[in-house]
């Protein structure tokens, strides 16, 4: 099978400090990769390099493009990369404010990606928006409300709907349950798991919360100080961690 994403030796430095170093892995269609590690271990840096939001200092991020097959997204032109950003890729931010337009209605937020790729029928766009709000458990009568009137959990669900509406082939998520109350997190996780199953999503999920990857990820990468210290199937890594750091992480000794 052709990989969807092939990451080769990605490096990113902030001045003399390591953001992430020598990261390589392959993601196949339909797979969910979890990236775990304590705060400051380089998870977000890596994710941003993969999603074209940060330029790595070295390495390649090969993506299976529709038109030309495997292509390095680091060296492709900016227009091409931005095009991927609004079609084949989606990015769910930890803070919904970073991923939503707070001055635009929920329906407009969901519809934006549709309009960005040429949808020009108001009724259709609105219909799809309502459908997607329903799929993330937001009532239809909230379609014209702005996200600022929503709770944190609703905002995050709206952000997810806005990202998934165009059927992206790869979803990047950075701490999607991050800022939420525990009970709200559980509901969101449940929802995400349902969507991942139904849509057969391919995704890379960054989190410091092992419960998130336990539920969602097929495979895990464990990061420490910018380096990947262990990889493997999720259950394997969590139930039988090999690296000392992973053992600490799993035993919840580490404050993450």
């Amino acid at each position, binding site marked *: 099978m052709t990989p969807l994403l092939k990451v080769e030796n990605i490096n990113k430095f902030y001045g003399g400090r390591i953001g992430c170093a020598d990261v390589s892995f392959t993601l196949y269609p339909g797979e969910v990769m979890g990236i775990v590690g304590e705060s400051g271990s380089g998870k977000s840096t890596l994710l941003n390099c993969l999603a074209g939001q940060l330029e790595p200092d070295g390495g390649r991020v090969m993506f299976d493009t529709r038109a030309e097959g495997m292509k390095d997204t680091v060296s492709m032109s*900016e*227009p091409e990369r*931005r095009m991927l950003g*609004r079609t084949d890729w989606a990015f769910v931010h930890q803070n919904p404010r970073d991923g939503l*337009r707070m*001055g*635009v*209605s929920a*329906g*407009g937020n969901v*519809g*934006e*990606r549709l*309009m*960005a*790729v040429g*949808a*020009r*029928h*108001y*009724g259709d*766009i*609105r219909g799809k928006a309502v459908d997607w709000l329903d799929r993330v458990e937001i009532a239809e009568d909230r*379609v*014209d409300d702005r996200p600022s009137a929503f709770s944190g959990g609703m905002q995050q669900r709206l952000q997810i709907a806005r990202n998934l509406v165009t059927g992206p082939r790869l979803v990047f998520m950075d701490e999607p349950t991050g800022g939420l109350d525990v009970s709200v997190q559980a509901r969101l996780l449940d929802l995400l798991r349902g969507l991942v199953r139904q849509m057969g999503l391919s995704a890379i999920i960054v989190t410091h919360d092992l419960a998130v990857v336990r539920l969602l990820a097929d495979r895990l990468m464990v990061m420490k100080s910018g380096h990947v210290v262990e990889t493997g199937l999720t259950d394997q890594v969590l139930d039988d961690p090999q690296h000392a750091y992973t053992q600490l992480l799993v035993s919840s000794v580490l404050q993450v």
Partner: protein
Amino acid sequence: MTQSGQYNFAYLDEQTKRMIRRALLKGLAIPGYQVPFASREMPMPYGWGTGGVQVSAACLTPDDRLKVIDQGADDTTNAVSIRKFFQRTADVAVTEDTTDATLIQTRHRIPETELAEGQILVYQVPIPEPLRFLEPRETETRKMHSLEEYGLMHVKLYEDIARHGQIATSYAYPVKVQGRYVMDPSPIPKFDNPKMEMAAIQLFGAGREQRIYALPPYTDVVSLDFEDHPFEATKANHSCALCGASDSYLDEVITDDQGTRMYVCSDTDYCATRRAQGHVGLQGVPLEDNAA
């Protein structure tokens, strides 16, 4: 141009006018593209059309006949002061007759009378960036223009329909120019949008924002819309009370303390010309009686 008397023709020095003309030529070469220019201090406040005034200054020649309108009228304070400014600084002939003018500077309207080849229409523009509403970052809007990422414009129209049941934007209605750049036509009523496909040259000047853009004659100008909410060049559903015109953009005027309203042409030259031709609206009086 050797006479020292013409050195400051139309107020601006020759160097500045050349700079503005270069920006105008670039704008005409790339219809709808916002060309940055070094806007000069003018002896009038921003918001009084300093961008338009600079463009006019760069285009005027001693042989021009200048018309200035504000909201369609030649006799408003803004129009009168700009017209006087150029009479004083350029000694050009002025006219209120749309057909007779060679250069027309306007704020908020396009004349009703169809413009012809050889004429120039200069717009005063407050906010040149049509994407500003949803994306305040200038670096980002520039990128969106250069990559033709215009989905946001439709988000704005979507919001309009979601909130008002229809596209409620009635001024500064965004257009796509020659299939490429999305452009803010300045705060003209959307009724005027279809007129932008015209024989005259159209030049847009934004003084405070330091941008110039342009439409060469016969450029395609398409108002953005949805398939199920098509663009409509609407106006008040009345005819002019003075001249009876049913095809012109109307202003609502309150005529007494009881709040009695009447609708009259916003284009004063169009209205006067029709009345001179003998057209009389429901509340109008024939022109001769009026004068008597």
